[in-house]
């Protein structure tokens, strides 16, 4: 809502039409310092013997990590397995966390995805039906949504892992390039290049059907 008002204000003051070009995605801000401190407090509790406190970290970070694993593997079942293994591994190595917990656990999940991708023979990959509620109102929209989902999945599966990873982080997880740079230990410029290349490959793969 605020963004819309800001665009209208910009249009009025500069005489240009911004209102019809809504940015495709909004980025999520990096965790604030107090959340990082809060994570460390939870880690201290777990290390002191309060195992249940680990559930706070799972609750706090599982959704973006699940989306990452789902986006990278294309499978809800595989994403669940990777998430389970990753959090259990994180629990057992919690004493090794230096710096941000969210970045540390992200790397565990991202490596889990890469290992899976290395091992799987990707001759066929189909995304399973998910149980997300549909926001489409008509059967035609529902059908169209299903087609786009399958086609996007197939197109993403063609991309090299590093391009798919960058695209998913940018457009599904909604991360800023700066946040991606921290998590992937890469430069903003390199990540922009990867996202751009991913988009251009997807454009080529999907434009005939959808343009």
């Amino acid at each position, binding site marked *: 809502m605020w963004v819309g008002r800001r665009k209208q204000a910009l249009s009025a003051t500069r005489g240009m039409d911004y209102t*019809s070009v809504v940015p495709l995605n909004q980025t999520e801000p990096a965790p604030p310092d107090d959340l990082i401190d809060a994570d460390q407090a939870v880690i201290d509790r777990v290390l002191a013997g309060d*195992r249940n406190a680990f559930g706070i970290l799972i609750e706090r970070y599982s959704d973006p990590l699940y989306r990452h694993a789902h986006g990278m593997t294309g499978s809800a079942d595989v994403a669940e397995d990777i*998430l*389970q293994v990753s959090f259990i591994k994180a629990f057992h190595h919690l004493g090794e966390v230096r710096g941000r917990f969210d970045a540390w656990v992200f790397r565990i999940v991202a490596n889990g995805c890469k290992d899976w991708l290395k091992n799987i023979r990707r001759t066929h990959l189909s995304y399973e039906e998910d149980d997300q509620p549909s926001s489409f109102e008509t059967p035609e929209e529902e059908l169209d*949504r299903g087609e*786009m989902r399958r086609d996007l999945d197939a197109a993403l599966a063609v991309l090299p892992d590093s391009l798919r990873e960058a695209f998913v982080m940018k*457009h599904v997880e909604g991360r800023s390039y700066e946040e991606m740079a921290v998590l992937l230990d890469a430069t903003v410029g390199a990540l922009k290049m990867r996202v751009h290349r991913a988009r*251009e490959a997807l*454009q080529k793969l999907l*434009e005939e059907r959808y343009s």
Partner: protein
Amino acid sequence: MMHDPLDSRTADVTPAPATRARPEAEPQTTDREVPLDARELPSAVHAWLDGDQVPSAALIGAEREVSLWKRIGAETGRRSRMATPVHVRAQILAKLADD
């Protein structure tokens, strides 16, 4: 006898190729070198997709691309709202309790 280039017993009787590219001249295989069938997108489209403020005039001529990316955006937006299934969190905690 068939010559097996991977069999060391026949290696000494096999002449080396007359010319061979220097190893350092060979391209390294990385993601950057993976040939991708791609179509260049206008920089204004990339800027728009990056969430930058882009005036409508900058996207004139790129209507097809914008239309496609709005549809892709609807799908990626749906995925960005996906949540971890409730049973996954419970399973993780149960496994930790069993350890």
